[in-house]
């Protein structure tokens, strides 16, 4: 087909096509950015959860070794330290919890466990000296906002020692 139109493109047509190309590129770029951010958030979430589980496991290990190391503790916040091949809980005085991995802070709370009239463990009833409530919170900063993961469980003196 012969084309007789020799006018070329108007400057406005060129500008419109350039701006459309810029908008498309920016949209795709921001999509990649959002994807990267979500991947980082998911990675930090997984790390926070694994650190919290690890901390629960450390308190369980201390309890299995000796119930006395837990039963003597009053309600409050503690840090877990390794001493003489043993996990030991020491009072935590820092307001934010202890930083125990790059940028991740941990709070270990030991609380009284109560046994209701039906014999079930819960938040009310008679204090049970052979059970303690354990709450582990791991917090970290994600783009200026606090994120946290909290695990809760009961530790029992099932061995009766």
């Amino acid at each position, binding site marked *: *087909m*012969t084309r007789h139109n020799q006018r070329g493109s108007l400057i406005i047509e060129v500008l419109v096509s350039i701006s459309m190309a810029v908008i498309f590129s920016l949209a795709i770029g921001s999509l990649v950015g959002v994807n990267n951010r979500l991947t980082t958030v998911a990675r930090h979430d997984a790390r926070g959860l694994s650190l919290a589980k*690890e901390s629960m*496991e*450390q308190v*369980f*290990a*201390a*309890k*299995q*070794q000796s119930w006395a190391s837990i039963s003597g503790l009053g309600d409050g916040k503690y840090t877990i330290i*390794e001493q003489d*091949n*043993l*996990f030991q809980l020491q009072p935590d005085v820092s307001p934010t919890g202890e930083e125990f991995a790059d940028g991740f802070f941990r709070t270990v709370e030991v609380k009284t466990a109560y046994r209701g009239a039906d014999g079930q463990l819960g938040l009310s009833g008679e204090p049970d000296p052979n059970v303690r409530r354990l709450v582990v919170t791991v917090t970290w900063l994600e783009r200026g906002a606090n994120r946290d993961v909290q695990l809760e469980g009961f530790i029992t003196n099932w*061995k009766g020692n």
Partner: protein
Amino acid sequence: MFKPTNNQRGVTLMELLIYLGISSVVVLTMMTLMANVSKQRLQRIQQNTAQQAARVAVDKMTYSIRNAYRVDISADGKTLDIYSTNFADLTKPIVTTYSELDNQLYTGQSLETPPQPENLQPATPPGVILEQLSFREISSAVQVSLRCRNGARNAEISSTISFRQL
């Protein structure tokens, strides 16, 4: 429909050269992109394999350690013997061993005493290299730290596993 054209001029050498230049840039870009995608895919597969091998190894160990009443760790921290109660015969405990041999994880089980090295079986898949393995006993727990490599990628897991003790 296609209309016959009266333009018999063909293309000039310059037009042909420009076309060739542009098309080679496009083809080169596409080829680089394809090569990168294929390289990333291979690395992702290697990463997944290494991660899966490390996770399976730690899961197996967790299963064995949970019910232990005693663990023995060799001086170099690379062999773990796990003693658990054998309810069929309380005098003969079940002993499960995990050990590193030639950059592979080996495991085996026997009664009363740890299994002989020749009775151990590989616990990491072929092609996966166990780069690092260490066991440490703290309180009533075993701290396992291992790193598996597959090709250019590796995966590291460090885990504390508590056991019941006597």
